[in-house]
């Protein structure tokens, strides 16, 4: 179907490219420990881009036999601004594993058993356990009028659990999830349950919030406020628009020398892995920060063309709209401290496991101020209880310029892999 579309487009435009994504997803929902619903969904979407008179037009459709897509793309091009865009030529593809035959073959009852095993591990008096199991299997096809033609299969499995405990007006909600191309092995399910159980246990005692400029250990789940600004600042488009605080500073030391952040599309079976991006550009491991030095930004073809730099293979396309640059897998290099060593090093401070309201306001500027959703008091080098009424504040760029410690275990959370990170001088205020 995609080659026919490109052929039709080719007769009326100088160049064209397209993606065709198909997907079948099964979702099982366990509510309060019981399997409550099973859903199946099927989706197919084509996204076509044409280049006509140096103008870009895009259109998409979910119809099985899309008609009118070429016309819609040409109409969109007719009112666009000109840009010099060169679609990529075919290039050899690296071998990247994005598909698991076992995951694709798993039946509804296999998936149900998987969810049930997690429910059972979490079953506990006074805990409401919600579990979601999802498996999708599909394919991605990318092609352009210069001869790029690639197809790869994708599976995505996710297993998520959330425990809610209410007593009086006190609500505790602790969740965790697994996401990858493969079904989780038994030990993965066990450690998911353990990680939730450990945090519920830590929260059993309430601890008064501390105050001051304190050492704070951010778990991977708790560190979004630190890394969201960097994620936005390393977007080529933000650099191009002149709104990135990291723009124009490649080669400059901006962070602690222990900080290295790589975008890695080649990790076997990780959620963001792919051999080729949605514009037919073959990606590679791209360091964004290397030993504290700003090393790279991510670009799609159009942003790269406007900025006069090479595309980095980060384009993502949905059925509707234009390609946008998006990270594949972000991997933060680990350090050498065990969890216990990190907690001991905090000595008197806080562990932050989840913040409220991350992503609101002027994120790219780096300043943040958030109440904690889940945080634990560390006193005398030990976790002593949950801290509720506190807020943490700081500036991500300043705080990350001196890192007091990095864990040696990297934890995968979706397409983000990172160790716990210990920062000093984080502002903590009681509420």
């Amino acid at each position, binding site marked *: 179907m995609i080659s026919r579309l490109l052929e039709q487009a080719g007769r009326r435009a100088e160049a064209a490219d397209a993606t065709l994504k198909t997907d079948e997803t099964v979702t099982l929902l366990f509510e309060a420990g019981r399997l409550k619903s099973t859903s199946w*969904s099927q989706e197919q979407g084509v996204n076509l881009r044409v280049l006509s008179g140096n103008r870009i037009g895009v259109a998409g459709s979910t119809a099985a036999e899309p008609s009118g897509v070429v016309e819609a793309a040409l109409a969109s091009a007719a009112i666009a601004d000109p840009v010099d865009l060169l679609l990529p030529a075919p290039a050899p593809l690296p071998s990247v594993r994005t598909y698991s035959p076992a995951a694709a073959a798993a039946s509804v009852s296999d998936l149900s058993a998987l969810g049930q095993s997690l429910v059972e591990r979490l079953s506990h008096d006074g805990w409401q356990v919600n579990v979601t199991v999802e498996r999708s299997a599909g394919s991605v096809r990318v092609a352009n009028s210069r001869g790029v033609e690639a197809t790869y299969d994708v599976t995505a499995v996710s297993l998520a659990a959330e425990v809610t405990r209410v007593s009086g007006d006190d*609500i505790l909600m602790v969740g965790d999830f697994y996401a990858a191309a493969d079904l989780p092995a038994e030990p993965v399910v066990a450690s998911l349950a353990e990680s939730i159980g450990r945090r519920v246990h830590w929260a059993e005692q309430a601890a008064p919030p501390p105050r001051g*400029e304190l050492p704070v250990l951010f778990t991977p789940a708790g560190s979004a406020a630190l890394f969201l600004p960097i994620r936005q600042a390393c977007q080529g*488009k933000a650099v191009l628009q002149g709104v990135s605080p990291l723009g124009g500073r490649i080669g400059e030391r901006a962070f602690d020398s222990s900080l290295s952040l790589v975008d890695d599309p080649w990790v076997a079976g990780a959620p963001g892995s792919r051999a080729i991006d949605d514009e037919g550009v073959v990606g590679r491991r791209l360091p964004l920060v290397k030993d504290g030095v700003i090393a790279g930004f991510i670009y799609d073809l159009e942003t790269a063309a406007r900025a006069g730099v090479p595309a980095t293979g980060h384009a993502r396309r949905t059925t509707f709209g234009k390609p946008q640059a998006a990270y594949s897998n972000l991997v933060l290099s680990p350090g050498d401290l065990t969890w216990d060593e990190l907690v001991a090093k905090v000595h008197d401070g806080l562990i932050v496991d989840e913040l409220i309201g991350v992503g609101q306001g002027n994120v790219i500027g780096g300043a943040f101020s958030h109440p904690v959703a889940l945080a634990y008091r560390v006193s005398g080098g030990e976790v002593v209880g949950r801290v509720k009424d506190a807020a943490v504040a700081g500036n991500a760029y300043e705080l990350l310029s001196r890192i007091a410690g990095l864990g040696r275990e990297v934890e995968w959370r979706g397409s983000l892999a990172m160790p716990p990170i210990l920062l000093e001088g984080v502002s903590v205020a009681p509420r």
Partner: protein
Amino acid sequence: MKNRLRDAIQSSRADFTEIRLERSVTSAVTFRGPRLEGATVSTDEGGFVRCLNRGYGWGMASFTSLDHLSAMVARAHELSLAVRLDTPIRLADVPAREDDVVLPLGEDVRGIPLDVKKRHLESLNAMMLGRDRRIVDTQAGYRDEVVEYWYTNSDGTMLSEVRPEVTLSAVAVARDQGTIERALESLGRRSGWNAVQHREEQFLSAADRAVALLGAPRVRGGTYPVVLDQKLAGVFVHEAFGHLSEADFVYENPQARDMMTLGRRFGGPELTVGDDGSAAALRGTLPYDDEGTPTRNTVLIQNGVLVGRLHSRETAAHMGEIPTGNARALSFRHPPIVRMTNTYVANGSGTRDDLFKDIKLGIYACDAQGGQTFLEDFSFTAGHGYMIRDGQMAELVKNVVVAGNLFQTMDRIDRIAGDFQWNELGGGCGKGGQAPLPVTEGAPHIRISEALVGGSVR
């Protein structure tokens, strides 16, 4: 289409079956700085089937091909039978009805050429860009959608609707050396082309505010009396209270049910809160929810007492209450879940300045940039704020983040003005992976006697 739906329902072997079909046409135009990012028209179509059998769970199927409806019904039925349940799922009764509704289209956007939409946004965007030399970047967005919608179920309901929606958004970014500030404005209506006319003032005020924030000091963190403007008060009631009043949060959780027992005190006798899916032409307005239940005005807090909650047919049956028409799905790709529509705080009395009067040192927090609730804890970010000094509005301040505990904060609402207004923002609400769902909030100015602002101890 209705005949195909009837045939598909009749083919079902399940005890209960419902089918939703949607066919939408969307135009989207975006500018980034002076440049057109894109202008597209897209069509999307698909359907959703849900089956329930006695003693079994829900089976659901969603799909982008409408050619095999009966096969999709059979699949949903099979999936239902895959889930055995000891405690049966029951659905509250909703009288069957047949209805065809075309919501007011406010000059049908489908009749306006894409080029005209582009030029309209281009001129609004150019006004922002040209307002001040310190405006270095903008994002301007226009989006419209008209959804042809069909709903039917095995109880005999058959509905068809035409649902329009239009949104405008403006982001202005101002830069002065190392300082970068942004300001947002947006508009969302369940209407058409008429609703986006004469919006110059909104775009200019985004530019003016971004520039003004460059020179504004950061708010000094601490505990203050806080007056919320109508927009922020609306977002507050949605985030902090609204989500807890969604019955799917409490219906399976005995402790949560205790916490949200009807009759419990919430705030003072001046406080009345509700959710009204039947209000005219707002983003959350619809004649029926996505289970075919008529929408209505549901009072949640009446004069400081919890009196109601938001329901789907399932949560209503489970709790022995009445379905409120709040089962909503983002699209055919999703099942209906309990959601808000147009959530409001009812009018008190007096003016904004009356609320300032006896505040020695406080904060006037304006404009919602976003909010998040984590059950009883919430946080929301104001677009900007002003200090209140000796009962008067004083200097502009930035980085105003208000955080608190729901129960405490509701009790600390000590004044409610009489200047109610729907905020008609263009964003949306997210829950269970379904975002952005069109909702609106409305409120008068409200005063909280004490709230945490900022959080920096410096």
